[in-house]
């Protein structure tokens, strides 16, 4: 079952060069992650600027989820280091992880407001209860993602797109500066994907840095400032135009992607897709 994707060089929007100002929000140097005797990530060197929108693409098992977990500080690096700008030792939590919808227990007895409030708990401190200010944060975050009025819904009563937006609201309530989104577009219909993209742009305007993994090369090319093409190693990292080249795509996807080149277009036929995912790709 092949999924037909078209990468049209001419249709790629023009992007200005990534901002040089300020220091990188994320600096990864010489990162290698091994577990259970296999190497998930090898010798990664990546640097992100504040406010960038970066798409992470690559085949299943490329280490996308592993990378996110290392950045979130959930999985320790085997070698190398990850530094987050603005992360004061022991304090301020500025990274938010937006989970894949398939990894969430939607039957859990919590409401939308409960979930978004979870983002506030490190700000609250242990054994403290939310104050009026925290509820304001929750309401504000729900407003931004267009879920105002749905606070009291049980989470299983939301549509897929709304569920995804709820988790982005949680990241906002956390006051995150770097948001890691694990497959935010997977399983969503086109209008819901547009909603998420719109929110990503809103966050971009606010200077929030976004790192999103996706299987959709079109989305990655059209809506992100830079693309990280990953297959255990960095195959390509930069402007989509410089990354989505036939030789790099083949290098990353190997036999799972067939490229058909016409005069000024590259067609990519991909058979990797999204529903079954890299959930086995972590140590837990």
């Amino acid at each position, binding site marked *: 079952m092949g999924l037909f994707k078209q990468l049209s060089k001419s249709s790629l929007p023009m992007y200005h060069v990534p901002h040089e100002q300020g220091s990188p929000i994320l600096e990864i140097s010489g990162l290698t992650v091994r577990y259970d005797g296999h190497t998930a990530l090898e010798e990664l060197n990546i640097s992100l600027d504040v406010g960038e929108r970066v798409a992470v693409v690559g085949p299943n098992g490329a280490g996308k989820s592993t990378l996110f977990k290392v950045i*979130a500080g959930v999985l320790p690096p085997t070698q190398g280091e990850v530094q987050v700008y603005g992360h004061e030792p022991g304090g301020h939590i500025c*990274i938010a992880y937006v989970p894949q919808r398939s990894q969430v227990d939607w039957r859990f007895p919590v409401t939308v407001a409960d979930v978004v*409030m979870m983002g506030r708990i490190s700000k609250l401190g*242990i054994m403290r209860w939310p104050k009026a200010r925290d509820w304001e944060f929750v309401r504000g975050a729900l407003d931004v993602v267009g879920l105002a009025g749905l606070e009291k819904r049980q989470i299983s009563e939301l549509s897929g797109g709304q569920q995804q937006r709820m988790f982005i609201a949680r990241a906002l309530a956390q006051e995150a500066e770097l948001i890691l989104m694990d497959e935010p577009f997977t399983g969503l219909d086109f209008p819901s994907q547009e909603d998420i993209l719109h929110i990503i742009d809103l966050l971009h305007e606010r200077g929030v840095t976004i790192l999103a993994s996706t299987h959709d090369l079109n989305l990655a090319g059209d809506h992100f400032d830079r693309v990280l093409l990953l297959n255990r190693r960095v195959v390509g990292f930069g402007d989509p135009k410089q990354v989505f080249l036939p030789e790099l795509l083949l290098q990353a996807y190997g036999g799972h992607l067939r490229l058909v080149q016409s005069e000024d277009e590259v067609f990519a036929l991909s058979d990797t897709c999204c529903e079954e995912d890299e959930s086995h790709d972590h140590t837990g």
Partner: protein
Amino acid sequence: MTTLADIILEPLGYAFMVRGMLAALMVGAVCATVGTYVVLRGMAFFGDALAHAILPGVAVGYLVGGGAREPLFWGALLAAILSSIGIGAISKATNLREDAAIGIVFSGMFALGIALISSVRNYTVDLAHFLFGDVLGVSNSDLVLTAALGSLILLAVVLFYKEFLVLSFDPLLAATLRLPDRVLEYLLLILIALAIVVSLQTVGVALMVAMLVTPAATAYLLTRRLPYMMLLAALIACLSGVLGLYLSYYVSVSSGAAIVLTCTGIFALTWAARSLKKTHSERAPAS
């Protein structure tokens, strides 16, 4: 002529019945509240195993203390904590799945408990008390200990409410937010262990898992919010405790079994009512 009031009041004329009721109420509330997490986190097998694994601790307390209650409590608590640590250590060190590790520790500890108790002559009576509970043998000092430990457990559940909630719903968020997730995880295991130890005398080890799971599962069918689920579970468990004891008084069946059967009955009724309501509301638009 016997009136309803007589039926209700008659058993309460016996001090042992009143003490039994108080014990059942406290144990019900505590077990059901903690049991909410057991149900939501899929730890029913762990809870069952832990209940059985405390038997050697109870046995040692029994052999050392010569019938005094307090050594039983401490022995049981120690066995529960050692078992939870043992389960974690085995599954980590051998790469076995956790349920296999639970199976090994649970059956091994349970057998050790039976072996220890059987070394005493005439052991069947005592063993039966540990296995199936002896709620009508509760003393005043037992009640004080139950009340003290029970309030401690409930206090911890309230104080760490949002931490346990995040840990259970989204462990990855807990780790990202740098919550002390290991400490909280162990704290929750200790709370479950404590709840089990507190309920030892009321339902016994064999039926303990019903107190942890059934009221919370019933509440889960009725509500979609965690605080209400806890409250409802506690109410259902208290109701089952009281109704069960009346049942045991009038029908002359084992009190622990009567309490658990009442719990199961309430679950079945709730399930049936919910299914009926569902089919009804599904048909309604068509008519």
